[in-house]
């Protein structure tokens, strides 16, 4: 286990490093600099700004300066929001996205596993078919369509939930459901297929033979194994959801991290972009590691090896 963790940590650092490098280089070779505005600043001022942010010189010099500051755990300054550190901006925006994404993750995994198991146990009945039709529909409807529909139905028409705002639990429900909807569907499909496979296996026949009802057999024995592919899917999904959704945040007017991605690219705010990408990658690596550990807990046959 320790050697496994060590190797994983090392390869994760390499992955994060590669992703950061690709992002930085692409962002810098893109036309238009962080200080280009409609009204062009005088050249000497632009030059001074670029020097201050260490963005002049060759691409290699800029890149090594950036990597150097990252080595000192310094994410740098935002070029757009002057006098703000990238870490401060992220600290300000991330909690909202964490709350929204965390709630969506819980909804997606609970509803997905439940719906998928139900569909598998009632295979080829109307329950199965309608559950899978719903799943395909929620994959096919983009969140910028489902969001306004949810608002119109549950807030304006039925009046159960507030139309907008952010902070209270009631205000979080609609955006979280909207964000979770397609992933409920992915997880339900994944869970259904995997459970159907497991239900054919020998150990489940044994469970039935010793007198367990079908429901008991599935709940006690099959779900524990069938959930493994879902757990794998949850790793990257957690990183994706927790770092914010551009669409859901813009539809529900939430100030979260998703808009950081869009705005920092539009503003050529390369350090802010880099910081957001680092957060994403670190979360991704951590959750994938967590997935591997959960795997060994769920299935004793799997041994972690490096």
């Amino acid at each position, binding site marked *: 286990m320790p050697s496994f963790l060590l190797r994983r940590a090392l390869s994760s650092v390499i*992955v994060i490093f590669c*992703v950061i490098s690709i992002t930085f280089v692409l962002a810098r070779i893109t036309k238009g600099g962080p200080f280009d505005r409609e009204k062009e600043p005088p050249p000497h001022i632009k030059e001074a700004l670029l020097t201050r942010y260490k963005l002049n010189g060759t691409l290699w010099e800029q890149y090594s300066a950036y990597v150097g500051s990252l080595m000192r755990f310094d994410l740098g300054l935002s070029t757009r929001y002057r006098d703000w550190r990238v870490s401060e901006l992220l600290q300000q925006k991330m909690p909202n996205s964490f709350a929204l994404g965390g709630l969506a993750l819980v909804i997606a995994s609970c509803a997905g596993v439940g719906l998928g198991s139900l569909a598998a146990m009632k295979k080829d009945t109307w329950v199965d078919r309608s559950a899978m039709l719903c799943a395909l*529909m929620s994959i096919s409807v983009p969140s910028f369509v489902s969001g306004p529909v949810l608002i119109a139905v549950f807030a304006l028409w039925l009046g159960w939930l507030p139309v907008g705002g952010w902070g209270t639990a009631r205000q979080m429900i609609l955006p979280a459901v909207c964000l979770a909807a397609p992933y409920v569907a992915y997880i339900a499909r994944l869970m259904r297929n995997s459970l159907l496979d497991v239900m054919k296996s020998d150990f489940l026949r044994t469970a039935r033979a010793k007198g367990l009802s079908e429901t008991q057999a599935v709940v006690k024995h099959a779900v524990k194994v069938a959930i493994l592919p879902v757990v794998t899917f949850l790793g990257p999904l957690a990183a994706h959801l927790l770092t914010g959704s551009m669409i859901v945040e813009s539809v529900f007017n939430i100030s979260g991290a998703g808009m950081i991605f869009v705005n920092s690219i539009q503003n050529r705010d390369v350090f802010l972009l880099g910081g957001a990408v680092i957060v994403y990658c670190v979360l991704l690596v951590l959750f994938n590691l967590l997935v591997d550990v959960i795997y060994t807990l769920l299935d004793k046959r799997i041994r972690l090896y490096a």
Partner: protein
Amino acid sequence: MPDAAAPARIPRPDGWQILKRNRAAMFALRFLVVLACVAIVVPMLLPAALKVTSSESFMPPSARHLLGSDVNGQDMLYRVLSGARVSLGVGFMGAVISLFIGTLYGMISGYAGGRVDAFMMRTVEVLQSVPRILFIMILIAALDDYVKEWVDGWRLAAQAENWNHAASLMSDLQAYSKVLVMIVSLGLVEWLVMARIVRGQVLVLRELTFVTASKAMGQGSWGVLRRHLLPNLSTIILTYLTLTIPAVILDESFLSFLGLGIEDPAASWGSLLKDGAQVINPLESKWWLLVFPALLMAASLLALNFLGDGLRDAFDPKSGE
């Protein structure tokens, strides 16, 4: 001699028969064919007056404007159908580009094996950990100015040579240059899944006897890949092409909705929904601006997903998701 041998195929239950019995998938296929024909033909038949901007802005659906009109007085039927052209076109072309890259990459990786395979798959893993939509946005930002300049360069060159047709074609193309950028950017990013699937298949196929046999008969690597592996991969490729198209359409519409994608005068479902969402207010609902593009888009994506699922059940029954 080896060239004379017909490419060997693995016997399997006929997937096309399975697909034909899948009523939902066949209905989806018919819907998509009809939609594509309507989107191509109907905008050509509409009277020219409906296609241009006019003073009749925000007209609700009526006999003159079947689906209403938008802020610039353009007919929504025309806008929605030309949006369908762009959305479906970008989806298809983007998926085809990703299919080419993914298939080639997966075939080389799987067939080469060993260290080359390990390195190529590690690279795919690294790329998969970049947020996909972010990568597309960076690519669009990077490519957009270059493509605009490039098209403009050709236009000026054509003008200098007095090729009026070419020059007017280029100035038309300028308005649609963003579509080109979107296709390339989406295609360059979406190939990762395809590469993994193809590699997995090649790993299985290359161990089979007919591959060993054709290698023993002296066929080179490219020959084996092209003549023996590709035919056996074709249905898997078709399946994942069908499943990639809705993913590309969805990504395109996200970007257009955020204002980073398709720009006027071109339209896509995403950009139409963005325009509709901008003028919505609780007092006076201009529902026709949102309902029609949203319905058509959801129906098309549903149909594509149904068809893709049907193809997967028919040709790749073992893969769960």
